[in-house]
């Protein structure tokens, strides 16, 4: 989903033949990718070059070969300008030491070049948005993990960037905290017109926030595309769960010509051509079964990911 605000480029970033090696290890191998603006998920196994790619986009490391641009700016020559328009929330725990929460965020803004009054006003605004109320007046060392992650997020958006890069933002958070952070990310991406690059190993998180994904492996691009399009729908295949007695139900269905496969407590039913789910309801009514779950079979994001990795 690309936003068409006035003057904003529809391409979020673009890499052309980028190669980066660290000694014997090739982190990025002739990588070329063009990514539209919106909420983008960055997936890949460990060591696939995700971190290197993020650093390249931020202009933090020199590349051996290739070029590219972020938000229309060349990352080989206009690195500082890129970092004014990009916010980055790094993976590990990082803090400016010995300050209160609001001072932390204001300082983060001042480092981008905001005036101190602007930075303080904006810090309060942004802390309201991420939901750190009175806690902002306490020292940051006393924060819990969830609060620290939200503080990091706040400090990344204080200068209103056009692109927000998040590296494992829900690391180590309890379910409530995770839900809140994901909600903030969704809100930023969908309602506030900020583009997001979300790098995570937790595929359901990526699915909850992003519409488009890139899969990297061994420094190369393995797959890219819209999530809904990548998850193929198998038209005649359905996932069915019944309340009890799934074996008898399965037998009944295969008698009608369906191909059944059992997985955990769910049946994968492929109905013959020309039929519709109606036949499943008929079978359920006849056998006095309760169908508790009926959906078209769609590959999960995990399957898309694993398939992309196998194809390399």
């Amino acid at each position: 989903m690309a936003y068409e605000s006035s003057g904003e480029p529809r391409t979020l970033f673009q890499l052309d033949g980028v190669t980066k090696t660290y000694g014997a290890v090739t982190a990025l191998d002739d990588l070329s990718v063009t990514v539209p603006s919106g909420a983008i998920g960055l997936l890949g196994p460990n060591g696939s070059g995700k971190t290197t790619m993020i650093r390249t986009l931020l202009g933090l490391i020199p590349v051996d070969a290739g070029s590219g641009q972020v938000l229309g700016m060349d990352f080989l020559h206009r690195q500082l300008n890129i970092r004014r328009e990009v916010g980055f929330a790094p993976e590990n725990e990082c803090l400016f030491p010995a300050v209160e929460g609001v001072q932390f965020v204001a300082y983060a803004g001042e480092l981008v070049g905001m005036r101190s009054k602007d930075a303080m006003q904006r810090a309060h605004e942004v802390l309201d948005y991420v939901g750190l109320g009175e806690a902002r007046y306490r020292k940051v060392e006393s924060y819990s993990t969830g609060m620290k992650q939200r503080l990091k997020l706040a400090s990344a958006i204080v200068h209103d960037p056009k692109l927000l890069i998040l590296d494992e933002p829900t690391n180590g958070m309890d379910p409530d905290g995770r839900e809140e952070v994901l909600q903030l990310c969704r809100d930023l991406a969908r309602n506030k017109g900020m583009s997001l690059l979300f790098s995570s190993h937790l595929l359901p998180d990526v699915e909850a926030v992003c519409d488009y994904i890139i899969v990297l492996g061994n420094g190369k691009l393995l797959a890219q595309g819209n999530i809904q399009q990548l998850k193929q729908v198998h038209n005649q295949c359905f996932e069915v769960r019944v309340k009890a007695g799934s074996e008898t139900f399965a037998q009944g269905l295969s008698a009608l010509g369906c191909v059944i496969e059992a997985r955990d407590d769910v049946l994968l039913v492929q109905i013959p051509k020309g039929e519709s789910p109606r036949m499943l309801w008929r079978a359920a009514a006849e056998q006095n079964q309760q169908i508790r779950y009926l959906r078209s079979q769609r590959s999960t994001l995990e399957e898309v990911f694993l398939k992309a990795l196998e194809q390399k």
Partner: protein
Amino acid sequence: MPIFDQGYQHWSGHLSGRAWRWLAVTRQGIRGGLKNRFLRYVLFAAWVPALALVLMLCMWGLLERRSSLASTFMQYYMALLQPGVVADPQHYRADIWRLSYGYFLEIELRFSMVLILLVGPNLISQDLRFNALPLYFSRPLRRIDYFLGKLGVILAFLGMVVIVPSIVAYVLGLLFSLDITIIRDTFGILLASVAYGLILTFSAGMLILALSALSRSSRYVALCWVGIWLVSGIVATVLQAVDSQQRRYVYYNKMTVARPNGRDFDNLSRAERDKQWRAYRQARERAAEEYRVAELGFSAHDWRPLVSYTENLSRLGQQLLGTDQTWKRLSLLDPDQDARDQLLATYMGPQYPWYWSAGVLTGLFGLSACVLNLSVKSLDRLK
């Protein structure tokens, strides 16, 4: 619309240019430093010598104008200085100012070392400990801005105790003298003290930054700083003492009068004994005076003071202010050659060439810069 959106608001304001980015780092560092109450106490205490300097300069100005106020303090002047100086204040104005500034800078050098001990170790090591470097370098901030910002913290604090008091004292001394020709005589002193302040800041600042960047624990950094400041001083003193003691014995061995001792001595009358003791003591004093004068000459080749960090800075300060010439001029007041030599031997600083110290300090500066470059890497190699 009567209900206002409480969610995220966009912001498009003014972003300052690259050149001022380091100021944000400095401001933050100063704020953090001032939270430490020992630092506040030391800053307060460091202004006491500044007050003393102001007092000295103002009183000298009053003396020049022969004001009534000065006459009440005349007895103190007489006690402190030679009458020839008090008789002609204007002629010796520059010299007295020079000496006052010299003592002031020596004291403030010690205070600066304490200030750096209180504020310096945390500067980079705290950022390393809390892993703040990714936050810094993912913003439009180059490494040089970061280092300059941190150095600016040191500049702010040392400037507060060295440079600002120098300037304020100069202006006040000027006002109390009401004589514009002072500027011609003494402007060099102001420049020298400001230059000294800057040299002190850059040298000590780079050194403490380099130490701070080497460790995550500010306690080890503080220990290292104490090592450089105090331990190197002690080592230099010990080396010098060992060396000079050997030379001292040469002079004592050259004494022709022996120490009164032995059974023959005990048998002498009281008057005879006293006379011999007196002769012995005089000979000893003579030897000590000769030794001291010779030491002054010897110190021209002595490399041992270079081991002490603070000694190097003092030597440069001494050179910039030109206190040696001042002492030479003051010693001319005394007609007696021996007395003059004794004065010089007592008050003049070490005589080795100033460019040795400059070399040592430059070397340390370069080493610090290399260490900083290697240890604070940009996010290229940070995990």
